[in-house]
């Protein structure tokens, strides 16, 4: 009974603060000025800080889209993003932030390349890491700087089976991403 209460109370509190929806379709964020298509069957959790999507369980796979204020400090590095940074410089900071996190075990960078995202200069990094239970995870992380915000779209999944299985859905989400904000130029 105690366990049930422990689960239900936070759920009720959480449900009050954010929205969990089960349907797919177009998602538009007026506050963060972006839009994406959500595949049918993916559950979405949207708050004022991010949009999170998962097909079945975020512990197996999730897509997270975030519009982060550019001056918001990071947790593990004191480096800061600046509006005129090159995508490579932004990628460097993101990688420092991630690899300095003690929750990230056996971090390995697979790829770090410049890309175009919705027509704007951006970066793409791919990396792997593992958990203490030797579960191997893989992440694809896209980042794009605008004047005021740092947009990032990331896909993380258990490397074995789930990553490959759901990557097409992620690519569909990524390709539908539209920014309604002026990029950093």
């Amino acid at each position, binding site marked *: 009974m105690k366990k049930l209460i422990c*689960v239900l109370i*936070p*759920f009720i509190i*959480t449900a009050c*603060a*954010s929205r*969990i929806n089960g349907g797919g379709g177009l998602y538009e964020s007026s506050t963060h000025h972006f839009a994406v298509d959500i595949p049918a069957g993916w*559950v979405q*959790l949207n*708050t004022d*800080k*991010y949009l*999170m999507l*998962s097909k*079945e*369980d*975020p*512990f197996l796979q*999730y897509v*997270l889209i*975030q519009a982060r204020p550019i001056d918001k400090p990071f*947790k*593990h*590095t*004191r*480096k*800061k993003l*600046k509006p*005129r940074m*090159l*995508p*490579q410089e932004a990628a*460097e900071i993101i990688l*420092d932030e*991630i*690899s*300095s*996190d*003690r*929750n*990230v*075990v*056996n*971090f390995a*960078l697979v790829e*770090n*390349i*410049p890309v175009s995202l919705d027509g704007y200069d951006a970066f793409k990094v791919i990396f792997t*890491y593992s*958990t*203490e*239970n*030797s*579960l191997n*995870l893989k*992440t694809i*992380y896209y980042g794009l700087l605008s004047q005021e915000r740092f947009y990032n779209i*990331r896909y*993380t999944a258990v490397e074995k089976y789930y990553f490959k299985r759901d990557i097409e859905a992620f690519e569909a989400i990524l390709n539908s991403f539209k920014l309604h904000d002026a990029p950093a130029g």
Partner: protein
Amino acid sequence: MIFLMTQRAIGKPVLFLLPYGRMQFIVGVLALCLLAVGCSSAPRSAVNPNLTLQEDQDQLLRLAEEEQKILDESGLLYRDQALEEYLNEIVRRLQAAEISAKTPIQVIVVEDPYLNAFALPNGVIYVHTGILARMDNEAQLAILLAHEMTHCTRRHALRVYQRLKNKPAFLAAVRDTLNQWGKLGALASLLGSTGLTPGFTQDLENEADRVGLELASAAGYDSCEALKLFAHLKEELETENLKEPFLFGTHPKLAKRLKYYQAFCENHFQEDADKITNTEVFLAKIHPLILDNAWLDLKRGRFRSAQRGAERYLAIQADDGRAYYLLGEVFRQRGKDNDLQKAKIYYQQAISRDPAYAEPYRAMGLIYYKEGQKRLARPFFESCLSLAPNISDKAYIEGYLRKCTPHEGG
């Protein structure tokens, strides 16, 4: 238990990339709602409040071994066999043979730029690269190791464990820290700094300070070096603008410990007049770590610490292009006032000392490129790719080169 405690965790799965706190909570609930299946790992050793002394000891050792296993497999350890042998040789020098047989001590280095060290109840001492890189000599190292060894040999963890194990809050804390996610030094911090018995842990810290100093002094080390070691810790707190860290609250205050060390030093000053510091040997063993740790500082955006590390390294190993490159990176990445000009000077120094070193060329190219001087950027990017055709950010550099056509800019 912890020499200077700051708390960080390892091993938390999957959700590290998400915003912290509430997000993890939400996701946990979401996962439950979606699947109605828990994702928790198998519980590790549970705490049984009815165990006897020997059973407690065994239990504690099992917990320590589990934590050690997590750390060993974390990829966070600094691997330098010669350095580890050196550290363990100092331990042997500090430890009487009869104690050594009962409590074998092993020292392991953790890649972490923060000034810290901690001991597990099974005799494994973890020392951060940050504190090693900041020390001046072997005497300071010996004092630190003797302090941590005392926690092990005096069974401080067992004493705390015995005292706390029946307290519900402690049991809950053990379950939280050990049954769910691994934490770096979780067991050490839990037992040494739980805050459930203010004063008790402080007594143990005092004992570790006192016995540690006696051990170091008996082994021939200059125990007055403890004052300098504490000065480094104090400086770290000040420059990092750290308040007494949460877990530090149960430690004797730094100033109080400093006073204790001063008194000890005054009493032993005559005896210690000709004692060992082994500065040269220490620096010879430690200097590669100083540079490696400076890179860790830079990664964390600790620019001042990174600069200090690089400069200290150059004082030992002058003419190493890598350290000049690191200094250049410190200034380029900080990007204040005249930093880019300083960065260029350091990159040029790196290139002049090691013309085959590709990274400083790339960095010079980046600065000119951002300044709009693409004509100047181009040869640096070209040199970089020529020296390191498979450099990790090759795709970026090729992109810059495409934009550095001869008629553009500069």
